[in-house]
């Protein structure tokens, strides 16, 4: 039995064996869920019902049931859409970007963050589709041959967004599934119930685990990381560009793409912490998801929070330095002192002030403090999108055009329902799928640390303990 060098986040307890790792990780799948899970699941499912009720009413009555009206045409749908996209981005950071940077500690948390990505993108994808107003003709957004020779306008970032979201969502789902296959085979071989055996057997696709299979599988996995990384960066940059090309004070800034990406990682890692802390406690995963993992997530979150803070300052400076009365009016007056100043202050408090506590090591290693900060960041990041999206539209170039955006009761259904849908899927998955990647965690915990290459796909580059003569 070995530990992974001096790396505390990947150090294994000495009694770990492959069989014990399997037992620990799949144990929740073969137990009847506890009452607390049922309570949470049914609550989330109820909220999902509310979401689809609002969607149904939207399809019948139109988008007039929501609070949007001139001048704020992009309201809750777009704000909540960008919020959930941000959550998804952080999952891809852990599953792909940290993988490419050879961060082996990610193996303990990548499955749960990948699940977070897939479920967040599933929720997010509904909003732009519904926001078109007539979702049954959304297929018009796709380029297909038609008699009128009408095509999507490929020079518009709105269409870029359609392609970006479609590509990113599809890739995330298949990346997630590919990563699950060896673990599904492990569950298939452990299952006693014939129905479970059959279902997991079908999903595992007859995985045998030959050396040749692993060779191709690992290459395909690494390839997905290479594909997902530009997709995710491109996708969120596209959303940012979608706003930045608009000649609206508060939107028209070239800093938007990196601003949106860092903000997305910031908020998404906060959501990951909110999910991981109860998960490790409920499933007794403390041995695998250690406090060191949580601390590392907190450090990345702090870094992204500082980038976001820099952008907030930069926006103010640019508005002042530009001498544009519209930019100055938006940033120096309307946001801090206007009708929605409370939303701006909430954003600053949650995204700038509260995360500064993460400089303190004892705070980063205090689970309760981490959860409180992560929840605050989630609130702050939702409000950030609200401030960017709605406040900019409320006070644009013409004072005669100014207005005040407020939620209708159906907007609340949409917002709460989006959380309900996300948690319904997440809570459902934790009862049927392994929340830690079994094969990956074994491969790092049960083998000595290598000195050169650091991820499995590099294993045929000659870093071996036994040199074959072959």
């Amino acid at each position: 039995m070995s530990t992974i060098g001096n790396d505390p986040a990947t150090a294994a307890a000495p009694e770990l064996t492959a069989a014990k790792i399997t037992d620990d990780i799949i144990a929740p799948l073969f137990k009847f869920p506890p009452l607390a899970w049922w309570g949470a699941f049914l609550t989330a499912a109820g909220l999902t019902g509310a979401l689809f009720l609002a969607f149904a009413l939207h399809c019948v009555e139109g988008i007039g049931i929501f609070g949007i009206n001139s001048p704020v045409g992009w309201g809750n749908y777009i704000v909540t859409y960008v919020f959930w996209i941000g959550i998804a981005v952080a999952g891809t950071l852990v599953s792909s970007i940290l993988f490419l940077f050879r961060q082996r500690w990610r193996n303990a948390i990548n499955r749960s963050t990948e699940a977070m990505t897939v479920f967040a993108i599933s929720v997010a994808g509904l909003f732009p589709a519904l926001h078109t107003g007539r979702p049954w003709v959304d297929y018009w957004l796709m380029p297909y041959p038609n008699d009128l020779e009408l095509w999507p306008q490929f020079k518009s970032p709105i269409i870029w967004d359609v392609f970006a979201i479609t590509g990113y969502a599809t890739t995330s789902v298949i990346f997630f599934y590919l990563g699950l296959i060896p673990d599904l085979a492990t569950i298939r071989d452990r299952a006693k119930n014939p129905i479970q055996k059959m279902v997991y057997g079908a999903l595992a696709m007859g995985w045998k685990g030959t050396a040749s299979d692993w060779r191709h599988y690992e290459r395909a996995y690494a390839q997905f990381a290479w594909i997902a990384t530009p997709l995710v960066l491109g996708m969120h940059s596209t959303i940012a560009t979608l706003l930045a090309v608009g000649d609206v004070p508060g939107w028209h800034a070239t800093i938007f793409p990196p601003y949106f990406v860092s903000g997305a990682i910031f908020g998404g890692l906060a959501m990951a912490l909110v999910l991981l802390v109860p998960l490790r406690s409920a499933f007794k995963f403390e041995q695998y998801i250690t406090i060191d993992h949580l601390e590392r997530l907190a450090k990345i979150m702090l870094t992204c929070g500082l980038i976001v803070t820099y952008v907030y300052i930069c926006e103010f400076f640019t508005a002042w330095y530009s001498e544009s009365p519209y930019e100055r009016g938006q940033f120096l007056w309307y946001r801090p002192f206007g009708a929605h100043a409370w939303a701006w202050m909430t954003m600053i408090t949650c995204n700038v002030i509260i995360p500064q506590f993460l400089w303190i090591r004892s705070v980063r290693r205090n689970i309760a403090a981490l959860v409180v900060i992560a929840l605050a960041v989630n609130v702050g990041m939702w409000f950030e999108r609200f401030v960017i999206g709605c406040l900019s539209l409320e006070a644009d170039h013409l004072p005669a055009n100014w207005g005040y955006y407020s939620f209708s009761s159906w907007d609340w259904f949409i917002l709460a329902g989006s959380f309900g849908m996300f948690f319904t899927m997440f809570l459902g998955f934790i009862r049927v799928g392994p929340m830690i990647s079994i094969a990956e965690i074994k491969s790092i915990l049960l083998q000595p640390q290598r000195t050169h290459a650091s991820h499995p796909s590099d294993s045929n580059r000659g870093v071996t303990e036994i040199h074959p003569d072959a």
Partner: protein
Amino acid sequence: MPDHVNAPPSPSATPEVPYVAGYWRNAQAFKIAATSAREAGHTGIQAYLPYPVHGIEPILGLERSWIGRGVFAVSVVFFIVAYHMQYFQQVESFPMVYGGKPFHTWQLFVVVTLETGLLIGALANLLLAFHTCRLIPNPAFKPMHPRLSDDTFALALPISARASSEQLVAWFRGLGAEEVEVNDLVLTQRVDTAAGAAHA
């Protein structure tokens, strides 16, 4: 006798020739056995691993997977297709002035080109992984050994005129295999080993 001996594995789960298989719980012992098998000149070696073991590919003489090259080729083709699709629609089929830009503005075609090529590349990656790993939905799959996906490593060597089943059993025993199995495609037999008894 373990339960799984009575349940025949799926044909696709095992080598397709008569074989003798040795089983280990320890990755290091398995790598030593794999090295010995290659040094002894065995061919048609089939190795089964519950999780990736670093350095096993060169030991078994496996080449680097070609999936990456396949995905790259598919992506490049679809980068070109996606770019041409936009060019055709924006310049030839329905030219329209948008924001005062020329009909052919390559900078604005980059995003859809990139996203489409990568999406099709991802789909190709999945299909190539399914193809190379021979993955198809198989609800009735029975593995060669029920712990092969958990904590057991296996090395299967084909029975041949050069290596009889008795010789292979003795050879596996010498390498400390915890279980040895002889399969002549009609009958699967487990052979007790000292290492297996000690492990039990």
